[in-house]
């Protein structure tokens, strides 16, 4: 006889073990893409998406409540705005140091190094915004979907 209650996703031991193995690698690879974007393909946008994908996998296997304790709603809401602020802030810092908006050459003694630092900083901002926004959208859709009145 078929069990009418669907098994919880986290009770499936194979899925649970494999995703626990996989999630650290996804996050590590996200960081690699974030900080290696100036040498290989990738950058902040892709890194943010991959990072979010790791947490979404966690949410799919262990439930939305679990992932909401790891990445709280508040962090996601603040983070998505903070990333844009970091990006714009780097530009304003440049203006304060006497250069044009988003001209990073004044961030270090050597202009080339300054530009490199500037690019890393704004990529971090992009990554944060993309990661937080992806999580935000996932939370919004998944949370709405589980409510009784959600499927209108």
């Amino acid at each position, binding site marked *: 006889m078929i069990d*009418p*209650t*669907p*098994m*919880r*996703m*986290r*009770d499936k031991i194979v*899925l649970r073990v494999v*995703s626990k193995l*996989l999630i650290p*690698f*996804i996050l590590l*690879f996200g960081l690699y*893409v974030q900080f290696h974007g100036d040498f*290989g*393909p*990738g950058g902040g946008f*892709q890194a943010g998406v*991959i990072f979010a*994908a790791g947490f*979404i*996998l966690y*949410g*799919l*296997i*262990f*439930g*939305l*409540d*679990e992932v909401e304790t790891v990445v709280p709603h508040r962090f996601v809401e603040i983070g998505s705005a903070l990333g844009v602020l970091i990006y714009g802030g780097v530009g304003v810092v440049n203006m304060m140091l006497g250069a044009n908006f988003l001209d990073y050459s004044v961030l270090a003694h050597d202009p080339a190094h300054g530009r490199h630092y500037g690019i890393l900083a704004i990529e971090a901002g992009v990554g944060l915004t993309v990661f937080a926004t992806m999580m935000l959208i*996932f939370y919004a*859709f*998944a*949370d709405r*979907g*589980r409510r009784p009145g*959600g*499927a209108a």
Partner: protein
Amino acid sequence: MFAAAMAGILATMLMALARASKGPTVFDRILAMNMFGTQTVLVIAVSGFMSGRPEWLDLAIVYGLVNFIGTIAVLKFAKFGNLADDGRRAGS
């Protein structure tokens, strides 16, 4: 020799696509999609060698990591009807 491998992979892609279109059940389609993902990883790996720039394997790694998430999401949706549920439910 890369071309031969590529031809085989593309033929497999076509057959997986045919299965995805035929169905008949939703699980057949998920199966075909998963298989298509593996073939995509292989196409990217082989094409990197074909064009002489094998350092693009990052792309194949992304697919290896992320394709699994798509399959799990589809499975979860087919089973529970939403993505948030972890099956905790009173009275069932």
